[in-house]
């Protein structure tokens, strides 16, 4: 059932039409990545569905349904909840500052009953929606170069500072970069981009010296020279690189990765899942997975490209940017190109929080695709 832009009014609001508009090839690629993740988790648990592989697949299936539900929700609903969601995210971040749980030395978790989550994850989607909505009503000139840019800058800075204070440097950086991506996509002047980039690079050294916590500083130094302390903080990076390198072209074989099976690879089921995959499936397996990730990014970006509404374009590309950053940062970390920041490989790594964020983001992307011809005019959108 092909649906062109020229359809009868109301035709596109039919659920069946909306479902058919979802990019099912995209869903397939996501499933392939999640399936590869489950495969790896099965292997790492010593050929057992417990404790990870089954949960991973179950979670993905559930979140796939959520994604589809989110995709068929009217885009104007997303538009309407953009600011409230951002506001809620900010409130939660302030709350976590006050009453959050301290886990592994960082205050990131908020418990509601028996359910606990990281408010910073809400903010990853919140910042995308809020900025998209903000830019939706802004002319190109203002988005390019004007004093008005302080508004998006503040909107990005607030959550970034709160998250960085937890301290969760990885997420803070992710939010900042996602926000920056939207600002750039919305048409920021190149001159400003150049100035900001230069300032950011110049600020790196004083940041490291004065602002960062000791362990964060250590991570960066370790990254710069992992062999300096192979049993200490350099251990993670070194073991990961050993896992990768020893995989070779074809890998050691499924279930035969000594680094991951014998626990030399730290956090093998979460942050270093990609290294475990690289060890057992080798260069060919890695390139295949990277190709799948590239396909996801391409398809999501294409969706943003084809959207008729500016909100849709920015929202979809923002969500894509988040995903892309996850992939690149985790990949770089695993391969010894970036310091160890707790950023998992989306869909491949075990862990609910990131999967919720990513799948919700893809829900938004698919929603933009389904509603690519929809006119988003104001906050008063009609509901499905």
């Amino acid at each position, binding site marked *: 059932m092909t649906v062109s832009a020229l359809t009868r009014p109301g035709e596109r609001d039919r659920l069946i039409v909306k479902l058919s508009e979802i990019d099912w090839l995209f869903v397939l690629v996501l499933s392939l990545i999640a399936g590869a993740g489950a495969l790896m988790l099965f292997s790492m648990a010593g050929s057992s569905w417990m404790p990870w592989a089954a949960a991973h697949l179950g979670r993905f299936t559930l979140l796939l349904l959520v994604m589809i539900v989110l995709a068929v929700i009217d885009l104007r609903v997303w538009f309407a909840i953009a600011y409230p969601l951002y506001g809620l995210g900010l409130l939660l971040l302030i709350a976590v500052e006050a009453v959050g749980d301290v886990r592994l030395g960082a205050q990131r978790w908020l418990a509601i009953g028996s359910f606990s989550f990281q408010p910073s994850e809400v903010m990853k989607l919140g910042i995308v929606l809020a900025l998209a909505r903000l830019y939706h*009503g*802004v*002319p*190109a000139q203002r*988005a*390019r170069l004007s004093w008005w840019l302080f508004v998006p800058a503040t909107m990005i800075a607030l959550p970034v500072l709160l998250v960085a204070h937890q301290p969760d440097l990885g997420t803070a950086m992710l939010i900042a970069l996602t926000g920056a*991506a939207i600002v*750039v*996509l*919305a*048409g920021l002047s190149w001159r400003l981009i150049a100035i900001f980039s230069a300032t950011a690079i110049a600020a790196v050294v004083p940041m490291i010296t004065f602002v960062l916590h000791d362990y964060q500083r250590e991570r960066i130094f370790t990254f710069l020279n992992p062999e300096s302390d192979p049993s200490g903080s350099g251990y993670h990076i070194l*073991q990961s*690189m*050993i*896992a*990768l*390198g*020893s*995989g*070779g*072209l074809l890998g050691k074989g499924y279930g035969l990765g*000594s*680094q991951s099976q*014998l*626990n*030399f690879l*730290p956090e093998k089921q979460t942050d270093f899942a990609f290294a475990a995959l*690289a060890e057992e499936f*080798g*260069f060919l397996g*890695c*390139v295949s997975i*990277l190709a799948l*990730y*590239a396909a996801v*990014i*391409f398809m999501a*970006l294409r969706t*943003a*490209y084809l959207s008729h509404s*500016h909100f849709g*374009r*920015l929202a979809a*590309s923002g969500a*894509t*940017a988040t995903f*892309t950053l996850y*992939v*690149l940062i985790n*990949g*770089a970390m695993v*391969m*010894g*190109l970036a310091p160890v920041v707790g950023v998992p490989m989306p869909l491949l790594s075990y862990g609910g929080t990131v999967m919720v964020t990513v799948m919700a983001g893809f829900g938004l992307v698919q929603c933009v695709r389904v509603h690519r011809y929809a006119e988003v*005019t*104001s*906050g008063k959108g009609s509901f499905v």
Partner: protein
Amino acid sequence: MTQPAIFFEEVNERQGVFHRRAILMGAFAGLGVGALGARLAYLQLFETQRYEKLATSNQFNFKLMPAPRGIIVDRNGAILAANRPNFRLMVARDKGMDPEATLHTLAEYVPLDEARQRRLLKDINSAPKRAPVQVMEDMSWEQFSAINVRAPELPGVTADMGEVRVYPHGGAFAHVIGYVAKVNKEDVEKAGPNPDPIMLHPSFRIGKQGVEKAFDLALRGRAGAKKVEVDANGREVREDAKGDIPATPGKVIELTLDADVQLRAEEVFGEESGAAVVMDVRNGDLLCLFSGPSFDANRFVRGLTGVEYRGLAQYDHKPLFNKALTATYPPGSTFKTMVALSALEHGYDPKTVHVCTGHWYFGRMWKCDAVHGAQDLHHAVATSCDIYFYQTALWLGPDRIAETARKFGLGEIFDIGIPGQKKGLVPDTAYKKRRFPKDPKWHPGETPSMGIGQGYTNLNPLQLCVMTARIANGQKSLHPRLIRSIGGVEQKSGAAWGDLPVNKDNLHFVREAMAAVTTIGTAARVADLGLGDVKMAGKTGTAQAYSYGSGRGVHGTAGAWKLRDHAWFVAFAPYDAPRYAISVLVEHGGFGAAAAAPRAREIMRTVLLKDPEVMKRVVRPAPMPDLPPEMQNQPDAADGIVTAHAPTGKPA
């Protein structure tokens, strides 16, 4: 928010910018993913070998395995030191285990009372993580297998089989063989800058005394290694038997000792303190090197408690001391053999007669045990007349006596493989000058004491046995040999040291005199072997431990043990064709003839009864009993088969 006026061009401009930037972003993402791919290619295609090596060194460990320690056997192959399997139970602290609960569970299988559990818990908690603490040793097979079955559900618990040194004869060989024990800091320091890593292995034991110490490297063998796959926590996951490096077992050390003789020596000594040395006079092989009382070397392997150690160290019979080598005593009258020989060598007429009245004046009054009357040299040796030898010694002077004595190994240290020999002393004028600078002159009054083996003279039982063996051999300058072979390589024979530079006739005279000792002399009845015409020749000795003049010394066995004389007996047998020499010392034993000679007799009997050549002389074919005439035609009787109605068989 007011709806801004967005013109058509504006919308298009925003869209255009976005499209361009989105393509840029796509390119940027593509570049990022491409960079990752390039990095992967570098790591996985070009650096593979390097990382494979690192992964392998992560994955596999080689675990040192001590080699089985070489066994020690006697001349007939009887085991003196060996290894026996030892089922051990060990608990190590680890993640996900509760040491207290684990010990509680283990107590169901092995006896572990509350107090022991508490002590072990303390040990386990203070030991480094995953360092096993031994909970039980010498478990039964049932206990071992029961725990092994449950081990998978008991993290940190290992039941394995190790080897432990065992000395089947307990104390009899303790001084010669020594024992093994845990390596201590001094052992590691002594091993030099690069100690054998096996020394740090928890189940490795190092030789601490005697043969175990002297030949530790030969006995140790070369440790092997077990290839094991380990996880990141160092826990063993799998064993890779194909990758094992086999251990080279330690060498077998064969001693010249005869376990039967040594055990007989231990028996006859009982609780007495002293030493017995038996030597083969043809080749110097030591058949017995016993020091009593002894101690159970097996206790040292396990580790002595403080109380046990103090008990051994403070006992006045000194069980830890090897009296055959380490202790020196005045040789007493046994030394008269040397004085007699020296006199003959220097032209003394053996027919010279001195009259013993029980007293003799030379500067002061010198005494004799009895009134021996007129005697020549032969009889003076037999009756051990002090007064005769006072005068013979005076005739000779100290230097000539010492010269002869040294030719017979007195005051010498022999290389028998194990350390601990004390040199003792055969004094002469040079010694006096060296040792007493204030009174460097040898006074004539010091010579008579030397003539009866008192004074400065101090010797160990091994030296006296060598002396007797050389007298008995009559030709060779025999050296004692304790180590017969190491790993099958025969060691130098004790007969390969050249000849004795003395007149053989003179030696014959001394042997004859010693034979008289056991026939008509001081050891007349006590030294009778009871083996027909196989007789023993010897010399008694009763050496003062303390001088009687001081009022402390006790002649005989009347007074306190500590103050009694030392009893000596040296002998060789058979006296007409010598094969074995023996020296027996009974510390504070009283008279040599009473305390030492009977013990020497019993040990010598054991030696002789084991010698087939000697046995041929002892066991003669008994004459056939005269058969009654009616039996003489029976064919079976002619074949020597004893039938039911045969009168009597051969006497056994």
